[in-house]
């Protein structure tokens, strides 16, 4: 459990909140590059950390992420005309460039310079990989651009999706570092999902449903090791890196692509679950890519034309009690992603952690919360740079390996847990 004060501290990210200030220190995913496919394409509403913004790509291809509402009367610029180097409000024709600077107020003489006095908030948008990244904090303290491996490998080796999750970012993220639910909730999927099945390591998961956890502090966050019995007194280890504030990677299975997540607050009661799949050294096969598009693995299907999952709380996640009974799915909900999301959403928009009853296998979550709390408090107190901003912290991989019984897993896998260009992942 957490006290109400700490629960509020970690879950609230709107402007002016401590955790909101911390998220504003990082480059975070804002939208898929495919959402702004061409110069002068339709603007897109973006809500991040409680701020209402509109993203657009101007006539010269410059990306802009600016305040959604016109400074004149507060109309949404989503209705705007994206043309001739800026976004024009359709109400009285005020026009803004990609930085949010007002560049035309038709009712005033152009020479008066009135428009120069009007400036909307504007954040940068930078395309790296499939994603447009933004930094919503102080321009003077803008950190280096992100170097996560999944978005810096060649494009044929990577695939990214995002889905709307209807709960606070923290309870979604906690699912990403909670290895102890895999043997239960996702047990059906290990058999049937084309992006998981067939890996040699799967048998350890299914033979030993009581993994033992070790949680090890790392400069950028944590390494969470789950060990199961393997042959000859050795252990099968699945190692999940968590990098602050909200990057997680799932341990690999065989030569399947590696995958992971970013959990980004939309507002305090909604978040984006970003999901990626990539292979460090080879292109994704056509079948793999199609499976990802079809919603297998960590991805999902959508309500057409939206980023809302096809299975959502309004249709009970298309729960199938018969499939649950037959054991094809453990909870009756199809797909890894929605198995997690359905349960996390059912916990409420912001779970009340004063009421939970944690056990010692929850120590990964306990440690992560404590790291977040410490980093936020250090930021508030002394402006300390939070972990995860240093590019070295971002160069991590997950690992699946069989190790001798007494080997400390982080030391034994030091190199495997680090991005090594041209070297494939360590996996079983």
């Amino acid at each position, binding site marked *: 459990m957490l006290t109400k004060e700490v629960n509020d501290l970690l879950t609230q990210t709107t402007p002016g909140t401590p955790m909101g200030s911390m998220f504003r220190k990082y480059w975070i995913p804002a939208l898929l590059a495919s959402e702004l496919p061409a110069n002068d394409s339709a603007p897109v509403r973006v809500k991040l950390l409680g701020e209402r913004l509109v993203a657009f790509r101007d006539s010269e291809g410059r990306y802009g992420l600016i305040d959604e509402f016109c400074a004149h009367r507060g109309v949404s610029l989503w209705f705007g005309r994206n043309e001739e180097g800026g976004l024009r409000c359709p109400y009285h024709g005020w026009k803004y460039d990609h930085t949010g600077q007002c560049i035309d107020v038709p009712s005033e003489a152009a020479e008066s310079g009135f428009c120069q006095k009007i400036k909307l908030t504007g954040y940068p948008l930078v395309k790296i990989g499939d994603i447009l990244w933004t930094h919503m904090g102080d321009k003077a303290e803008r950190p280096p651009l992100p170097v996560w491996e999944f978005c810096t490998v060649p494009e044929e080796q990577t695939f990214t999706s995002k889905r709307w999750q209807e709960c606070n970012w923290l309870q979604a993220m906690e699912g990403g570092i909670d290895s102890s639910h895999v043997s239960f909730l996702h047990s059906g999927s290990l058999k049937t999902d084309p992006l998981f*099945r067939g890996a040699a390591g799967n048998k350890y998961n299914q033979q030993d449903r009581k993994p033992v956890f070790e949680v090890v502090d790392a400069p950028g966050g944590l390494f969470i090791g789950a060990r199961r019995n393997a042959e000859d007194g050795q252990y099968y280890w699945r190692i999940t890196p968590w990098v602050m504030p909200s990057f997680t990677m799932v341990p690999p299975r065989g030569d399947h692509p590696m995958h992971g997540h970013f959990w980004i607050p939309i507002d305090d009661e909604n978040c984006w679950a970003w999901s990626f799949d990539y292979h460090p050294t080879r292109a994704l096969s056509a079948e793999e890519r199609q499976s990802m598009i079809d919603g297998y693995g960590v991805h999902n299907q959508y309500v057409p034309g939206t980023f809302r999952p096809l299975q959502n709380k*309004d249709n009970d996640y298309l729960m199938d009690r018969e499939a649950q009974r037959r054991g094809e799915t453990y909870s009756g909900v199809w797909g890894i992603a929605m198995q997690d999301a359905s349960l996390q959403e059912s916990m409420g928009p912001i779970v009340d952690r004063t*009421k939970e009853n944690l056990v010692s296998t929850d120590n990964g979550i306990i*440690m992560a919360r404590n790291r977040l709390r410490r980093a936020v408090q250090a930021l508030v107190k002394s402006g300390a740079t939070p972990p995860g901003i240093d590019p070295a912290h971002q160069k991590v991989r997950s690992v699946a390996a069989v190790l001798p019984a007494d080997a400390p897993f982080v030391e034994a896998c030091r190199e495997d847990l680090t991005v090594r260009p041209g070297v494939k992942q360590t996996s079983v």
Partner: protein
Amino acid sequence: MHDDDTPFRTPVPTFDRPTLLSSCAQATTAEEARFRVQYPNAAPRSSRIVALDDGAARMMDDIIAEPRPAAHFLKVAPRQPDISPNEVVLLRLDGDEALLSTELAGADVVVLIATSAQGRRAAEIIGRVARAASVTTAGLIVTADAADDVVRMMRPVTGVLVVSPDADHLAAMLSALRA
């Protein structure tokens, strides 16, 4: 048997599912969340926190300012008379001696704290006896070093292990576990 021997079947999601009044849509609003768990749904837990070495004992002293009525804070006594291969002499906060067997009776969880491999023998006994008594064990290693030997000591005797250079995880863990 291989996992992929199982025939692959694609479930077909459909749109013809009604939204029931009892649907999750109703179950997850902010308004209704206020009404969840209006009563104590868990009995108090009783925990034993055992400092295995001198560094761990100093750390423990730092956090016990906060009262935790359901927790017993214990240190492995420097002198261990040879009572039994299944017994460890512990020291309470007030300096009184207590036996491991007494302390384990009625305990829900034992948290072992180590900063070195100094407490190897006590750790081995506590882990073995706790497992026999079906008492959950958790280990916290607080050390800035690689700590191979401490991991080797703690891994066989704990059900979950946390390794961190920061002492403040102890308080966070005890609070999170309602210890």
